[in-house]
């Protein structure tokens, strides 16, 4: 009996942690976009939604889920680059203004998807069958794949930022755009690149989540607030902080979902986060000004 409870708890915990990894992917993108260009991207959740919707389309057209992991980043990149350059550039650096502008974008994206994809939530079949025995719990293989791929992506983003020349340019622009440009860095392309990277991360999160959630034109609204919290709690621009915050949030929410209703669990997590932000307004790992 006790072991049954323990294994059920473990199941919920792992579920929460995997959800946390997806959130971490999306939140990382959000953090880059805010850190480098000062855009509070209210449309970020909709990029996650777009990723999932594209995955659904690719699956129904080609019958293959895995192709979407290749096609979606390219498609989103092609969409995001002109958006940054042509639409968002004049607003950058004014957080409140970018918030409204991206809220406008969010309306546009959601309605475009509603027009073409429809308003009914749809489901994708599991691309990986089978399960994996883990401490007496049969765990679906695909969810483990999500975890593995997310970790690989997050690790490569870290390697990119800290071990490549272009990563240094991005970090320099994050610290001070003007000085970076005075040092001869082409901040223009860095901005476009960062925005594309951030959007692609969110979209890949959407692709990964598509088979385990319902694909719906408003699904972005479910994650956007969670991602903002993760970014703030983890500390802006801190990759490790974002990851830890997302995992803690996901894990706690997963565990609480066993005791409370899912909405109750989320409300409890949010209430906890209010407490954290009041006690440590610089975030758990952040060192910047409060």
């Amino acid at each position, binding site marked *: 009996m006790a072991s049954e409870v323990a294994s059920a708890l473990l199941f919920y915990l792992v579920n929460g942690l995997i959800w946390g990894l997806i959130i971490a992917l999306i939140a990382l993108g959000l953090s880059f976009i805010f850190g480098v260009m000062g855009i509070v991207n209210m449309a970020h959740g909709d990029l996650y939604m777009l990723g999932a919707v594209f995955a659904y389309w690719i699956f129904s057209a080609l019958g293959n889920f895995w192709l979407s992991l290749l096609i979606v980043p390219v498609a989103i990149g092609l969409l995001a680059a002109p958006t940054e350059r042509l639409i968002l550039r004049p607003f950058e650096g004014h957080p409140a203004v970018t918030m409204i502008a991206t809220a406008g974008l969010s*309306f546009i994206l959601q309605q475009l998807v509603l027009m073409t994809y429809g308003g009914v939530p749809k489901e994708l079949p599991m691309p990986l069958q089978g399960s994996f025995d883990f401490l007496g719990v049969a765990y679906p293989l695909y969810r483990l794949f999500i975890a593995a791929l997310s970790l690989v992506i997050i690790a490569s983003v870290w390697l990119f930022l800290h071990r490549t020349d272009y990563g240094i340019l991005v970090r320099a622009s994050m610290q001070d755009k003007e000085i970076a440009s005075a040092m001869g860095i082409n901040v223009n392309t860095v901005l476009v690149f960062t925005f594309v990277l951030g959007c692609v991360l969110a979209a890949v999160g959407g692709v990964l989540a598509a088979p385990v959630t319902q694909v719906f034109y408003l699904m972005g609204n479910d994650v956007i607030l969670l991602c903002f919290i993760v970014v703030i709690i983890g500390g802006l621009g801190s990759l490790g902080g974002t990851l830890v915050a997302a995992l803690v949030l996901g894990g706690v929410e997963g565990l609480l979902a066993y005791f409370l209703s899912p909405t109750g669990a989320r409300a409890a997590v949010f209430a906890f986060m209010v407490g954290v932000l009041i006690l440590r307004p610089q975030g758990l790992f952040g060192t910047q000004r409060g």
Partner: protein
Amino acid sequence: MPRGPRSLAMQTMAFCIFAMAYDLCFGYTNQCSLGHSVFFGVGAYGVVLSLLHLQSGILLGLLIAFVAGMVVAFLMGSICVRLTEAYFVIVTALFSAIFHLLSLDMTWLTGGDDGLSVTLPDISVGGVRLSLYDPMTNYYFILVFFLASYLLMRRITEAPLGKVFISIRENEKRAAFLGYDPFRYKLAAFVLSGAFTALAGSIYALTLRYATADLFGLYWSIIPIVWCLIGGVGTLVGPCIGVALMFFFQYYVSAWWTHYLILFGVLILVILRTSRKGLLGYLLGR
């Protein structure tokens, strides 16, 4: 007055109260709250629940909603107002999310997604009985509250209190040096804003004759920012222009195109591109 435009005008006036109240916080003291759906929902449920459970009259119900909004805003404000800009936005958004989730969960109190319907009792003022089921009475009823709110808020913003609000918006440090405690004044603006937002919510619930958990949703926190920015921040008339414009869109454009929100999104981008101060600011600045 024909039926369509009249019901449009009634909703517009309810939202104008909301927009002006929001600007009291956003435009006058520069606090970009994402938590105003809390007050909107509290106001709506305040009046609906007091009609259902306390059998209070409509006027008493509105008063209860107003005071409830004030109390909730005071409690929330004493936590949030001290925080700096980004944290203020996030924590208020968290409050909005918490209220929304709880209202979805506590169906015994709120009716959840389906909401609670209510039948409106007659109002008796000085021996005259008025029924809000009569459309023209309902119209004038809302008009009275709209005008009263406008005059009250104009009185507040033109009083010394309003000048302190503006001075805090322009330069918080200097206002503090002059002896005005920014926290107290920002909290005052937040509480006033919350109370009038609750009033707007309760009037909206009366026109709908029900309240649902949806009123706590993030949508109702974002939309007032849009109204203010479109119409003009830092004024009382500007937000009303924003509401009217948005409703014109919702009503007339949605009639021939259901996806009018796309146009609305484009409109937001265009207005932000032409003038950050909104339509009113653009017209005045010419």
